[in-house]
């Protein structure tokens, strides 16, 4: 496959996306270029309308680029696929399946044997710490638990790339911090490649190897900053705060026309 650890896994080439809305054609994304190595954790940040979610959905294969293309592991993206797992802000769990059923859904959909599906589900139930809730249905779970299930079902499906669209945005601060730690732990143990969309600068600096700043009107990438702080990162350290100020300045300089 040619993507030894550290080699390029995702390549976004001059991707432009236009939508036709009630007010005519809108350019949601213009000429985005982004290269991501296998095992990297990349955060996309920016104000609403900057195209960060659009870019993520194009990598996922839910939207088609109007111009340009996305290449994952050497192949152009032509639609959604199990190699690129997506974690939605609103979870998107199947309400008729238990935690066990949701986690086993992908392996079962790909036609693995029953026994194998069951083994995989059990393993990931333990990995995300939901043993006591294995038979519960989504409506019986808290937001944090639902998001653990959503992450587990993507990992259980052997996704190499995990795409996360503001996954912790609907959670309370305590739960969000716990899930951030758990996600970093999983990422470090599995060598996954993660693209994580957020509008929180702090969350981006806490999590990412690289923070990509985007700005609206039309949506585009304005900077791509490597974060060299050691993990676990201390959000109150001077270095962290310096980076926060720098990224904040970048975010705001690009929508100066619209006082927020």
């Amino acid at each position, binding site marked *: 496959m040619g993507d030894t650890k550290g080699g390029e896994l995702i390549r976004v080439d001059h991707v432009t996306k236009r939508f036709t809305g009630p007010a005519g054609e809108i350019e949601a994304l213009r000429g985005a270029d982004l290269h991501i190595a296998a095992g990297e954790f990349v955060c996309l940040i920016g104000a609403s309308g900057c195209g960060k979610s659009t870019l993520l959905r194009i990598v*996922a*294969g*839910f939207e088609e680029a109007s111009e340009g293309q996305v290449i994952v592991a050497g192949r152009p993206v032509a*639609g*959604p*696929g*199990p190699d*690129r*797992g*997506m974690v*939605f802000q*609103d979870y*998107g*769990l*199947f*309400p*008729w*399946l*238990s935690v066990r059923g949701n986690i086993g*859904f*992908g392996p079962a*959909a*790909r036609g693995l044997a029953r026994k194998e599906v069951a083994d995989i589900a059990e393993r990931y139930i333990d990995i995300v710490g939901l043993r006591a809730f294995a038979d519960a*249905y*989504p*409506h019986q779970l808290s937001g944090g638990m639902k998001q653990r299930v959503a992450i587990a*079902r*993507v990992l259980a*499906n052997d996704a190499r790339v995990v795409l996360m669209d503001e996954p912790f945005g609907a959670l309370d601060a305590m739960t969000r911090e716990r899930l951030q730690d758990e996600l970093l732990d999983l990422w470090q143990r599995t060598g996954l490649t993660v693209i994580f969309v957020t509008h929180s600068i702090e969350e981006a600096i806490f999590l990412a190897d690289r923070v990509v700043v985007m700005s609206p009107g039309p949506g585009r990438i304005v900077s791509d900053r490597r974060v060299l702080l050691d993990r676990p990162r201390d959000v109150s350290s001077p270095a962290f705060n310096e980076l926060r100020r720098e990224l904040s300045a970048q975010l705001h300089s690009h929508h100066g026309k619209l006082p927020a």
Partner: protein
Amino acid sequence: MTHATTEARRALLAVAVPGLCLLGWWLATRGAPGLIPPPSDVAVAFWDLAFGGIYDDAFSATLLGHLLASAGRVYGAFLLAAALALPLGMLIGRLAVVRDLLDPMLQVLRPVPVTAWLPLSMIVFGLGARSAFFLVALGAFFPILVNTIFGVRSVEPRLFEAAAMLGVKRAAMFPKVVLPAALPGMFTGLRLGLGFAWVVIVVGEMTGVQTGLGAMIMDARQLSRTEIVIAGMITIGIAGFLSDKAVQLLGRRLLRWSPQHG
């Protein structure tokens, strides 16, 4: 409050209004015989209808036969309606061509009440059980159809995305996502359809049918046996109620995952 006392309280509240109605009925029909018999006459007639041994007339001990005849028509016609409405509803819900082809016609047919179909049904199927069967099936058909269409159409788009990124191909979306997601809607339709079947059966059996609760009520009316008429009405109410409870229980088992049903 403990669980047991809450239950007792609810049971007490549930019987309070019927109890008052019964009392009012008894007070109003006390004394000189009028058009409506007192509750005690109905109770005696009910007993005779069910077990015989009091009047020993044409109605004595016939209740079970009438009930089984009606129930057979209700469930037979209901199953026929479900067998047609469920697949048709899924097709209309999923395929725009089928929807454009059939939906306008069905929207016009739907408001035509079952009673308005009665004369036409008698012309086509003749007087008798076949006509009753047709009317019941027709009555159950539309609630099942409408709720199936709704269930199939209201699947959250997010679930299709989730299934697609987990490796579900387009052709497998129906069994993997649409069908389970639409089950609560279909189930609501089945429940309403069965309830409506019990409503329609009486109309269906009122002309040219020998057995059945509707036929029994009409016979009793012609013979001025009002207490039998009322006993028949109560029987239909109880049968419909128990039938609905059974479906509800089934739903609770099958739809444990749904906050509305579980």
